[in-house]
C-alpha cells in the first residue's frame, strides 16, 4: 500500500553503495577540478566563476579550503569585476558586477577596465560567495558599484534579469540579487517589496514554486523563492507554528509538497512523478531546513540514496551509478552538511556557503 511514484522503486540490481561519506576522496576530486577541468566542461566556460564557486565553497564545506592559495583566488576573482570607466557612467543603465570568465571580457582598455561589460548576476553571486569564503571583504566602493547598478536589472514585475543587454527573467535571479544584497549587508540595490510580490505570484496551486508565474512547481525554483523570502526578512523563525493567515505564502501546502518530494528510494525529486536526483537533497532539503521542518524527512533513507550516488573517484553524480560532475558534487556535499555529517562545516543554507563564511570568521 506504500506510495511508489513511477521510476523510483528500489532496484535489486542497483549499484552497491559505500557505507560512509568518503571525505578524503571528495577533497581529492575537488582539488583535481580546481587545478584543471576536463575539456567536457568547455561548454560551461562562460560560467567558470560558478565552477570555481563549487570547487572553493565545496572545499570549505569539507574543511579543506586552507589547501588553496587564497590570494590567487582573490586576485583572479577581482580581475573578473566589471568597472565603469568613470563614476558618471554608473547611471548608464548597465549592471557592473562580475563576469563569469574572461570569455566575455575581451580587451583591457584603460584603468583596468575591460570591454565589453558582460557581467552577469549569477556570476556576481558566485564571486561574492567565493570572496566571503576566503575571507576577502569587498571594499565599500566596489560594493557600491554593484549595488547601485543592481537596480538596473530589476523588472517592473519585480523579477530580475541577469544581464542588462537582455535575457530571460525568473526566480533564479531574484535569488541572486537577494543573496548578493544579504552578503554585502545592504538592500539599497533592490526593491524588496516588488521582489516579494513576484515570488508570491510564482507559488503554484500545489504549494511549490515555479520559475515564473504559471510555471510548474520545481525544487530548484522553490529553493530560490523560500531562500529569497528568508533573506529579505519576510519569513520568520517558528513559521510552522504560526497560523496560516499570517504568512504571505501558503506554508502548510508548501510544507506538504516539499516533504512529498522524498521518494520511495529515499532521494528527493524536483517535481512529482520525476526521477530522484542528488541535487534536490539540497534544493528541497534546504527549503525544509529554512521552514524548520528538516526533522520531518527520513534522514536515513536520504543518506542511503546519496551514498548510491557517491562516486568511487570522489564527487557525486546526478543519478546512482553515473560518473560524477562538479555541480552534483557540490550539492551532494551541501546535502551531507544538512545531514550534519561529522567533519563538515555547517552551511548557511539560504546563502549556499558555509556558516562561518557567512558571518565573516
Amino acid at each position, binding site marked *: 500500500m506504500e506510495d511508489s511514484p513511477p521510476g523510483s522503486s528500489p532496484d535489486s540490481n542497483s549499484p552497491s553503495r559505500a557505507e560512509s561519506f568518503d571525505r578524503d576522496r571528495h577533497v581529492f576530486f575537488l582539488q583535481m577540478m580546481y587545478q584543471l577541468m576536463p575539456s567536457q566542461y568547455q561548454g560551461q566556460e562562460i560560467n567558470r566563476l560558478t565552477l570555481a564557486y563549487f570547487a572553493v565553497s565545496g572545499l570549505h564545506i569539507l574543511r579543506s579550503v586552507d589547501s588553496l592559495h587564497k590570494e590567487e583566488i582573490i586576485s583572479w576573482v577581482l580581475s573578473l569585476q566589471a568597472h565603469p570607466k568613470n563614476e558618471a557612467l554608473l547611471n548608464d543603465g548597465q549592471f557592473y558586477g562580475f563576469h563569469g570568465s574572461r570569455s566575455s571580457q575581451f580587451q583591457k582598455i584603460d584603468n583596468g577596465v575591460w570591454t565589453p561589460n558582460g557581467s552577469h548576476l549569477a556570476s556576481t553571486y558566485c564571486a561574492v560567495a567565493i570572496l566571503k569564503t576566503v575571507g576577502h571583504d569587498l571594499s565599500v566602493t566596489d560594493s557600491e558599484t554593484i549595488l547601485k547598478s543592481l537596480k538596473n536589472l530589476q523588472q517592473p514585475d519585480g523579477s530580475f534579469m541577469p544581464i542588462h543587454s537582455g535575457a530571460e527573467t525568473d526566480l533564479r535571479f531574484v535569488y541572486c540579487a537577494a543573496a548578493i544584497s544579504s552578503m554585502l549587508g545592504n538592500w539599497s540595490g533592490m526593491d524588496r517589496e516588488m521582489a516579494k510580490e513576484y515570488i508570491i505570484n510564482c507559488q503554484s496551486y500545489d504549494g511549490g514554486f515555479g520559475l515564473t508565474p*504559471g510555471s510548474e512547481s520545481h525544487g530548484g525554483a522553490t529553493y530560490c523563492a523560500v531562500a529569497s523570502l528568508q533573506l529579505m526578512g519576510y519569513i520568520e523563525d517558528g513559521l510552522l507554528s504560526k497560523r496560516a493567515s499570517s504568512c504571505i505564502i501558503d506554508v502548510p501546502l508548501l510544507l506538504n509538497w516539499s516533504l512529498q518530494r522524498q521518494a520511495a528510494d529515499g532521494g528527493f525529486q524536483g517535481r512529482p512523478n520525476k526521477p530522484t536526483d542528488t541535487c534536490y537533497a539540497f534544493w528541497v532539503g534546504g527549503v525544509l531546513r529554512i521552514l524548520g521542518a528538516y526533522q520531518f524527512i527520513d534522514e536515513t533513507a536520504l543518506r542511503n540514496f546519496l551514498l548510491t550516488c557517491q562516486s568511487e573517484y570522489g564527487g557525486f553524480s546526478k543519478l546512482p551509478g553515473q560518473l560524477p560532475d562538479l555541480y552534483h558534487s557540490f550539492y551532494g556535499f551541501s546535502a551531507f552538511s544538512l545531514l550534519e555529517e561529522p567533519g563538515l562545516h555547517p552551511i548557511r543554507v539560504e546563502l549556499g556557503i558555509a556558516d562561518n563564511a557567512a558571518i565573516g570568521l
Partner: protein
Amino acid sequence: MNSNSDHKMPLSQRPEWSDVTPVPQDDGPNPVVPISYTDDFRETMDYFRAVYLADERSPRALHLTAEAIALNAANYTVWQFRRLILESLEADLHEELNFVDLVASSNSKNYQIWHHRRWAAEKLGAEATSRELEFTKKVFSADAKHYHAWSHRQWVLQALGGWEDELAYCQQLLEEDIFNNSAWNQRYFVITRSPLLGGLETMRDSEVSYTAEAIISKPENESPWRYLRGLFKNDMQSLVNDPQVLSLCLTVLKAENVSYVFALSMLLDLLCHGLQPSEELKNAAHALTSEAGPPGSDLARTVCSVLERVDPMRINYWKWRKSTLPAQVV
C-alpha cells in the same frame, strides 16, 4: 555545425579570414579552475573576439557566431552579438528560427536558446504563433516534461495567442501519460488564464469530474490530487462541502489493493478545515486501522495514526500533524 567534424578547416587556414588577427584569451596568472580547451574551441573564440571588438556585423561574422554557438551554446555574449548582426543585416527571422531548431536538437536544456527563440518570435509577432506551438510540441514528443519548452509555450500563449486547442492538447498528453505533472500544470494554466474559457469557478465542476476519474484510475498518482486541491484555491469551504470530493475519498478508502495515502491526506485536510464526516466515512477510515470495536470520536487522530503506518517515510510529519490538530476538529 557538427563540432566534431574532421573536415572543418581551422579559421587560420581559411582565405576569407586572412585579414583578421585573432584575439587570444588573457587569463592572467594563476587562473582558477582552468579548462582544458580543444584547439577548435580556442581558435573559434579567438576569432569571435576579433569581430566583436571590431563590431563587424557581416555575413561572415554571422556565420562565425554559428560556429561559436555550436561549440559553446551557453555563451550569451555570442548570442547577444548574433542578435545585433541579425538586426543590422535585417535578416529573415523565420530562417533564424530554423537555425535555432538545429542548435536546439543537441542543446535543448540551454537557457540562451530559448531566450533567442523568444526574441525572434517576439519580433515576428503573430506570424510565429503556430510555428512556436508546433516546435514545443515536437520537443514534448521526445520529452513531455521539458521545463524550458513548457515555459516557452506558456509565454507564446500569453504573448501571441493560440489558446483554441490547448485544453485538448493537455487532454491528449494526459491520455498518453496520466502521471505527467507538467501536463496537469498546463491544464491548470489553461483553465485559469485562457481568454476563451470562463475561468476557474465556471470550469470547476467539470474539472472536478475529470480529475476524480483520473484519481480513481490511479489513486497513487500525486498530480491529480494536487490539481483537485488547486481547483479550490482560496476557497477551502467549497472544497470541504463538495460532494464529489467526499465521494471520491470514500471510493478510494474503500477500494481493495490501492494506495490510499493521498486520500487520507486529503481527508485530514478536510477535517482540519471543519468537515463533519458521515458515518460511512468514519467507518471507512476506521477499517484501515488495526483497532477492534467501533470508531472513536477522534477521526483526525485516527487518520494521522494510519498515515504514520502506511507512509513511514514521513512518520515525523504525521506525528507533528497529529500533535497540532486544531481544537475543534472531529
